[in-house]
């Protein structure tokens, strides 16, 4: 399991982040992202995951993040652009990571070393 700092991801462009995450998860790693991904990055990650699914191997990812918190500055209110404050996110291969329970402030997950197929 790798704990990825906010700083490490902040240095990457959105597409680099998504490629990095998919690459690590395909190797079997479980990632804990300190600051998570933006909603559009999450959508890109889902999209790229779908292109990688292989019936005889990779079946996708398990991803769990807390709902983002919106910060609305005056500037953001004027231009109607919200910048969500992303939160801790857990990502891993679907056959090794299973979410047991999740609510606003708790993610409970089971990590296994064998395939759960």
């Amino acid at each position, binding site marked *: 399991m790798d704990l990825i700092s906010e700083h490490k991801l902040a240095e990457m462009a959105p597409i680099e982040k998504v490629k990095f995450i998919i690459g690590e998860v395909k190797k079997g790693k479980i990632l804990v992202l300190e600051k998570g991904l*933006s*909603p*559009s990055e*999450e*959508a*890109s990650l*889902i*999209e790229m*995951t*779908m*292109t990688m*699914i292989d*019936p005889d191997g990779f*079946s*996708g*990812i*398990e*991803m*769990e*993040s*807390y*709902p*983002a918190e*919106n910060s609305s500055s005056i500037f953001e209110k004027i231009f*109607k*652009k*919200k*910048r*969500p404050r992303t939160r801790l996110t857990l990502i891993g291969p*679907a*056959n090794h990571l299973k979410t047991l*329970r*999740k*609510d*606003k402030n708790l993610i409970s997950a089971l990590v296994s070393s064998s395939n759960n*197929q």
Partner: protein
Amino acid sequence: MSVFRKLKKNFSGMFKKLFNKKNARIGIYGPPNAGKTTLANRILRDWTGDAMGSVSSMAHETRSARRREGVTIKSNNHSISLDIIDTPGLATKIDFHEFMKEGLGEAESKRRAKEATEGVIEAVKWLDNLDGIILVMDACEDPFTQVNVTVIGNMEARSLPLLIVANKVDLPEASPTTIRNAFPQHPMVSISALEGKNIDTLYEEIAKRFG
């Protein structure tokens, strides 16, 4: 781009907005089996006499987006014309073994899984081309799924209207309150798309939110 071309483009956009207003494009989103196509069918039957597509208890029955243009919904003093897009169920994983458990053969299961992945990609791409979303959740299931969190996050980031539908309230184990408590910042309507329960309240809310 030259200044002149930029100005021309801006004026052209303003003109279109003022005099050639298009219907609002509303996507019906949600996880697989939440009842998206059942709801799309209900809306179309009520307002056009037609249907959107087939439904099934098997996940990923809808594997490509379906669009119906110019659906006019009238409710109280509001009338709104919408383009409705019924999207495939969003998921972060698709395992063909799940289809085999439902009784499909291996080859058919793999084909269905492949189509389902393409459907998810299409649904994600539509997120960039919508004016609002109806997010359908199964009121019998945990609402804190990643799909729900991602869709809501994307709509909030774009400041686009979102209406949550707590579906399947005809079932005894349904708990729409759990959904309301999970996402209190967004309007929610409890319905049974299958039985039509509370559907008029949904139409009122659609007209109000997307009008």
